[in-house]
């Protein structure tokens, strides 16, 4: 056989091995990373949320479980492979708030308990503090008032949008819609309210192809308080819309927080109705690769 063919094959083999090993090493995360979370929960049994993270598929030490020192009353359910990518796996740590008879968290005097870090435990018995974004935990309401409305239908989609439709069961006033993250996420969170009494105001549309088009008045333009008669309807629609300038890390943000409809009946009884804003990213291989590139350049 001609020697030149052998030499060409050797060069191709060397190039393939060298190139692939180089690309492989370039595609590794320097360490596991939790995504940036916007989480808001109440300290009541049954509330749960997922903390999502990305780690190298071939990591020598893998994330085993986490501990949230501020929340002694939670159970952690690790799920190490929610999604698998070429070089990484996306795992989830499900955090579930357990019974009231456990040691309870200590809340600050005013406002919710705010948590930014968790203690991550690895399978080589090492541990370290890791950033997770933000978790806001509200104390459980000891006497939750019965809201004068009933949720009748709801939906959410992979387009980071969702709606909830309510029917009022008593005459009541809607005094506001609040959330811990409304100010922080004003650049990407659109909330609109649809009710018969405000249809004359300027409307905005939220279009999610799978569920249709929803219109309503942007929250900042709603003239609260609004009065509702028993039997009337209201629809709250939200959409998380990332600005074009958002980098690869922002595309991995995880949202699970609450919009509170603050209500008051004619008898002066006030209550809150919760709406869950829930969105976890389903990343493509390309988005994961961009995230890895960003994390590598940032360290």
């Amino acid at each position, binding site marked *: *056989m001609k020697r030149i063919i*052998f030499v060409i*094959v*050797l060069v*191709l*083999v060397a190039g*393939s*091995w060298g*190139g*692939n*090993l180089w*690309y*492989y090493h370039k*595609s590794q995360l320097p360490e596991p990373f939790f995504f940036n979370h916007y989480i808001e929960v109440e300290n009541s049994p049954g509330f749960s949320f997922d903390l999502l993270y990305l780690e190298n598929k*071939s990591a020598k030490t893998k994330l085993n479980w986490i501990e949230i020192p501020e929340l002694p009353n939670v159970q952690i359910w690790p799920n190490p492979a929610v999604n698998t990518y*070429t*070089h990484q796996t996306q795992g989830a740590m499900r955090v579930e708030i357990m019974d009231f008879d456990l040691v309870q968290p200590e809340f600050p005097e005013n406002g919710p308990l705010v948590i930014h870090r968790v203690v991550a435990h690895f399978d080589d018995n090492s541990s370290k503090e890791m950033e997770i974004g933000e978790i806001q935990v509200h104390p459980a309401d000891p006497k939750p008032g019965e809201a004068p409305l009933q949720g009748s239908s709801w939906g959410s989609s992979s387009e980071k949008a969702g709606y909830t439709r309510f029917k009022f069961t008593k005459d009541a006033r809607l005094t506001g819609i609040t959330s811990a993250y409304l100010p922080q996420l004003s650049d990407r969170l659109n909330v609109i309210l649809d009710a018969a009494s405000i249809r004359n105001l300027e409307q905005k549309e939220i279009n999610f192809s799978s569920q249709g088009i929803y219109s309503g008045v942007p929250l900042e333009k709603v003239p609260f308080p609004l009065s509702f008669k028993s039997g009337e309807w209201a629809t709250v629609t939200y959409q998380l819309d990332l600005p074009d300038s958002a980098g690869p890390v922002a595309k991995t943000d995880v949202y699970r927080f609450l919009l509170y409809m603050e209500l008051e009946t004619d008898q002066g009884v006030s209550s809150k109705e919760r709406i869950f804003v829930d969105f976890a990213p389903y990343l493509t291989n390309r988005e994961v690769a961009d995230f890895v590139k960003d994390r590598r350049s940032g360290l």
Partner: protein
Amino acid sequence: MKTLFYRIGYGMVFVIFNIRVVVDLLPNVIGYLMILSALSELRKKEHSFTLGMWASLALSVISIPSFFQAHELHLNQPVLSLNFLLVLNLAETLLQWVLIYSICDGSFKLASIRGKGDLASSIRFRWRFYFGCSALYMIAYPFVLNTQEVAVVLFSSVATFIAMFMIMLVIRRAGRELSVPFERSV
């Protein structure tokens, strides 16, 4: 003559098949030593076998660790860094190319001299088939690290196995067909 070619064939059986129960029941090192002993005799008839003799000597040394611990390239657990076992594996494959080239080249020349055209062309075809499949495997394998596509690697790996088996058969045929003129000429 026939015995020497058959010895290469049996040696190749040890190399091709790996039956592992804690240790390799058909150790590659025994196969390479059998080929080494055959080639050291055959090189007296045809100089082309000398290269293979040195390759089989090197292979018998570097295949010792594989007797105790498997270090084949795996699809489900691809190599993750340039470690000692990976280097050994790459070296073994490259030396196998040299060894099988030398065996085929020597046999091809002996067959041509004896006027066994059919045998010679069969040897040449099988060498080319083996080299093509094995080269494809070696080029495709590292892509396992960066893609989830393994079809080419699986295909070339099976084809390489078949090609080695085909070479083993043609070497036995060479032993049968080349023994007669040699015995007459002695």
